[in-house]
């Protein structure tokens, strides 16, 4: 298996009874990347993450963590992973600190890490408060501290900013950038909001109804949304005729509206004068770039 990937799945399928939840999924998460795993609610993100953690059984030779087959190397794979799945799983009757100590016991690591982690997620002052009394945001941060405490190479974060206020969201974002940038960690972060991870992710995978619809670098996703020139005219058929002789790439045509590919400002001016000179009235001519959010909606609404 290709070892430049932190996570690789090969034609992964998963079903709950007769319902297929994950369909022929081939994830490729490069080492050191922040991989935004996007999809609307119920797309199969959490199921995929649970498969990656071996909580849900997958067939063998489908999932590889740092090149190692998951089912036959479960413990070795899990050693390199830290995770936060759905709601953070914490013991409500223990304090935040005790939750972290308990994790240290389970992982066999030094309990000195606890204070460091509490400081990292800003819970030092609430360390001795029962975790059940934490706000949603604090629970989420404790969950992140629990995922980070073993200093894993690979982090799986399932909607980590759920319930956080804008400040908290920015903190998590910066933390992810730091972990990947400075410490070379690989992070898979799922979200149903593209805008949320657009600024942090280096790679993106878009999933809907269990199928991977797009996978690549974030700029490849940007490239998908090439700007278009929209021209509002009185006679779109005539305008289309005229424009097609110039070799412009026609994208779409509607009553009174022609969309062509944007190639540059000069061309845009040329199209305008050409239309006017040939007797077509131009009401408006402007460029439009689809933002990623719309692109995301477009991609996920197709299947």
């Amino acid at each position, binding site marked *: 298996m290709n070892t430049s990937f932190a996570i690789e799945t090969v034609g992964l399928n998963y079903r709950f009874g007769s319902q297929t939840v994950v369909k022929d999924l081939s994830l490729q998460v490069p080492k050191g990347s922040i991989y935004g795993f996007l999809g609307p609610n119920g797309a199969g993100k959490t199921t995929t993450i649970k498969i990656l953690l071996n*909580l849900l059984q997958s067939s063998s030779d489908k999932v590889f963590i740092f090149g190692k087959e998951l089912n036959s190397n479960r*413990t070795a794979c*899990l050693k390199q992973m830290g*995770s936060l799945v759905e709601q953070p799983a914490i*013991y409500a009757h223990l304090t935040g600190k005790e939750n972290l100590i308990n994790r240290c016991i389970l*992982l*066999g690591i030094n309990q000195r890490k606890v204070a460091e982690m509490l400081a990292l997620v800003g819970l030092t002052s609430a360390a001795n408060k029962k975790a059940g009394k934490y706000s949603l945001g604090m629970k989420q941060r404790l969950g992140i501290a629990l995922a980070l405490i073993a200093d894993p190479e690979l982090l799986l974060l399932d909607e980590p900013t759920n319930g956080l206020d804008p400040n908290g969201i920015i903190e998590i974002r910066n933390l992810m950038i730091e972990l990947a940038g400075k410490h070379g960690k690989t992070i898979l972060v799922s979200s149903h909001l593209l805008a949320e991870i657009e600024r942090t992710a280096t790679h993106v995978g878009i999933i809907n109804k269990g199928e991977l619809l797009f996978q690549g670098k974030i700029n490849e996703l940007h490239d998908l949304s090439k700007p278009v020139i929209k021209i509002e005219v009185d006679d779109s058929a005539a305008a289309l005729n005229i424009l097609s002789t110039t070799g412009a790439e026609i994208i779409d045509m509607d009553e009174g509206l022609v969309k062509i590919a944007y190639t540059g400002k000069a061309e845009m001016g040329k199209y305008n004068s050409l239309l006017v000179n040939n007797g077509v009235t131009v009401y408006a001519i402007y460029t439009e770039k689809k933002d990623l959010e719309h692109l995301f909606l477009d991609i996920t609404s197709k299947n």
Partner: protein
Amino acid sequence: MRSFYISFVSEFYKSRKTLAFWAAIVLPLIICGLIALGYYYDSAKVLKYNYPGMILWFKYSGAALGVMGMLILPFYVMFMAFSVNNIEHKNDTWKTLFSQPLNKFSIYAAKYAYAVALLFICLFLFALLTYSTGYLLQMLVPKFTFNDYNPAIILSKLYGKLFLASLGILSVQFILSLIWSDFLKPMGIGFVGTIMGMITGSVGWKYAYLIPYSDPTLALGSSAAAKKANPESFAVFTQEVWVSIAYGVILFIVGYFILTKRNIK
């Protein structure tokens, strides 16, 4: 082995502030304490019968064993098996527990062993407290005849037998609580089972020993019957004890397979 050890330590760390853990200590303290108080304040009434040392010890320990073996023990076992598993159900932590780099069997076995250990602690304290409060009473009320007989052997045999005879109930309840996250199902089944065990055990149904819930009652009954002949010579490994141990072993293995086949939600 290391996985098992750290899982076991973690089980203790997690539950040390819960009722399941403290009940194992408080329950024997309260019951033995109350009985001792009763003997102390009503010493005149007890002394009137002029019991020889051995009989006095039987009466004294029988007070705790009677309530314990018949009623409180099954309920404590049910509650404890429920709590040990519920700590994960309630906090939705099965998924984190099983995504740690620890062998799945070790995590499960440690949980089971922890439940067995709690039961052991509880019964051990019963034996220890019965023994020590007996001698304490002797010091406070010198007319008692506790000094005439040393019940160490008989108490450890009785409570040891009770412990082994409870493993069947523990395993059944452990699996029920592992499968179901709610309180009512394992408790309901346990309640019905206990009543069934009490009835079949006390009427002496031929196959009662096959019901794990009647094994503690039967175990105490068979010892009491033998006691009359030669108090210390009763057998620990009687039929119902073997059945209970068999239930324990088989259900322990079955529970593991249930767990591995089940997807962690």
